């Protein structure tokens, strides 16, 4: 039993890593733009579809282009639609992006059809590691390492580069940033594209594990929202901690009470919000309070 629990704990950490990657783009878009992006799951699915399509035509290296393309689609949509929402009530952005999610899912069904697209991990990442009692697959380990690398790069970018400083300042006082001569609209377009591209990376990485079909987005959007809420709206480290915790909670529930595994993340979120209404590392946002 101990070895199974250790295996489940390691598995929960790896699953949490994937959840973090799904949620972090949502957290960035909310934290820097103040947009509740309900279409986040659709960009996740778009990443998977672009990845599968590029792979089938050009092989594995081309898959790397999928997040770039999704980022460009995100930037185009930001220019067409999302930027109109910056000065609106948060509820408006929720409704508009929900409609966008439905449209993107319908478009996916029209272009690729309703049938799931077969896609598996590359052969060099097939197989499992056995470290004593702990089993981890090579592919999930690679996903975890990729997630850590992306998080570190993202953190360093936001923390140490001038561009990152503009983003952080713009998220709190856009008027002041504008007065300093910085063209914030372009910056915001790039941020939305970045959030979509990170969702797409998660989609590409999830594609060999999940069924790539038009409903794929539904499996991503709710965990993403739960994690961002538990972590604290817009908090980068909060989303990381929450993602890993949710991974562990879900995995351990499967071990001891599998029937409750679908509901457990919501129960966990309710408990966290009872104790800390702004989430684990949430701050006060004047715009939303």
């Amino acid at each position, binding site marked *: 039993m101990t070895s199974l629990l250790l295996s489940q704990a390691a598995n929960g950490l790896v699953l949490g890593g994937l959840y973090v990657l799904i949620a972090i783009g949502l957290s960035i878009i909310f934290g820097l733009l103040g947009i509740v992006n309900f279409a986040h799951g659709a960009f996740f699915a778009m990443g998977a579809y672009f990845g599968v399509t590029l792979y089938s035509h050009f092989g594995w290296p081309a898959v790397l282009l999928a997040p770039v393309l999704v980022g460009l689609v995100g930037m185009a949509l930001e220019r067409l639609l999302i930027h109109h929402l910056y000065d609106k009530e948060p509820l408006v952005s929720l409704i508009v992006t929900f409609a966008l999610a439905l449209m993107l899912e319908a478009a996916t069904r029209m272009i690729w059809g*309703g049938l799931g697209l077969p896609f598996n991990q590359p052969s060099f990442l097939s197989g499992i590691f056995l470290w004593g009692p702990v089993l981890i697959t090579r592919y999930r380990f690679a996903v975890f390492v990729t997630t850590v690398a992306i998080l570190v790069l993202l953190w360093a970018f936001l923390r140490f580069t001038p561009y990152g400083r503009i983003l952080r300042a713009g998220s709190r006082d856009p008027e002041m940033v504008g007065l300093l001569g910085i063209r914030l609209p372009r910056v915001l377009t790039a941020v939305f594209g970045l959030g979509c591209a990170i969702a797409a990376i998660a989609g590409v990485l*999830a594609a060999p594990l999940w069924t790539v079909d*038009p409903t794929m987005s539904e499996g991503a959007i709710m965990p993403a929202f739960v994690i961002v809420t538990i972590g604290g709206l817009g908090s980068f480290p909060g989303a990381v901690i929450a993602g890993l915790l949710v991974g562990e909670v879900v995995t351990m529930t499967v071990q001891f009470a599998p029937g409750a595994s679908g509901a457990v993340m919501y129960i966990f979120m309710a408990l966290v919000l009872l104790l800390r209404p702004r989430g684990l590392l949430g701050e006060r946002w004047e715009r939303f309070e």
Partner: protein
Amino acid sequence: MTSTSFAATRRQVLGTAGAVGAGAATGLGMPFIRPAAAAGPIRIGLLEAKTGSIAAQSQYLVYGTKIALAEIGHKIGGRPVELLWYDEPSTQGAEQNFRKLVKEEKVVAILGGTLSSSALAEEAQAQELKIPYVCNNAAATEMTGKNCNSWTFRLNTPVDVQARMFAPFLMGYGKKWYFLTANYAFGQDIAKSFKKLLKAAGGTIVGDDTVPLNTADYSAYILKIRAAKPDMVLGGLAGDLATCLKQWDEMGMRGKIPFSEIAIGDTDLWAVGPKAATGLYTSLWWYKNPANTPAEKRMAADHLKMFGKPAADKSWMGWQAARSLFQSIAAAKSTDPHAIVAALEKWHDPDTGVSYRGFDHQMLLSNLVVQVKKKIPNKWDYFDVIATVPKNKADLNAVYGTAAEVGCHMPPA
């Protein structure tokens, strides 16, 4: 948008291979007597999921229905037939759309029922609204068992019957089983039916997990299965089967412990991909089965021509269920619901030899036991047919159970 009418594309499909000829062969060219009030097209409702993970299966059910419609030249008794496709977004949504089809669209009968949960609700609506309902996919046992009614006819083999057909095969692999079933009507039905048979045969349940529908990650379940070391995993995952099998392979389980399930769709396995697909399943039809009748082979050829891909088992189910309804309306020479029900009870397909049983309105069909090929040659050709059950068609009635065993007490129409 919730409804789709196929009337606009009627002419495009009219020319489909041998369609009109087949219609003539079924005797549909005869004069058609109808009540004066029923002038205009014959409207038939189609209730199949347009969204959700089951939508891939329903798409093929609709393909099959369209082929059956093309076979009769889109006409019954000289009157054009109009199909109206409504969604089954949820159990409640399916009920609402059933009522809408009857009350507002004035359909004379309804085909559909992709998920067991929706189909059970639709069956109750059929009884209340007194409208013929032919269920083409759902396999929940109680549909033609304790919930049966005189307005409902069902094609798919009930879960408990499939279990009786399939369990002896699976027990050949050993009697230590792990159950992994979805937490809704279909999964619960599978668990209940197989557990009863396993216990009766002296087998052991080494694990029993109910999985929330639309689960995206199966790794924690697979770790439990790996630790339990069963002889067989009995799944009941419906639309989540592909996700589970992809992760089953990813976690190195393919070929280590056999995986099986009943009532799957070819589309489930097509979504898994040749690298990860595995398992032993029951199926009603396989497009490469040499035992297919000439009419079935013609349907498969039409499917390829019309939709550019091979017919799936669900295409056949949509086609066969629609044929039963279209031929029965033609035989009734009326769109009166009582007359259609009476004709469905007497109906016998001249080309495939199938019919509905009188006392529970269950179609009696043999099942195929199919196994995923060791080496899959292309993206469609996944299965070897390893048996037809029951072996002897004469045993069908017994396998499907007597009236007392089935528990159907049909209320009068």
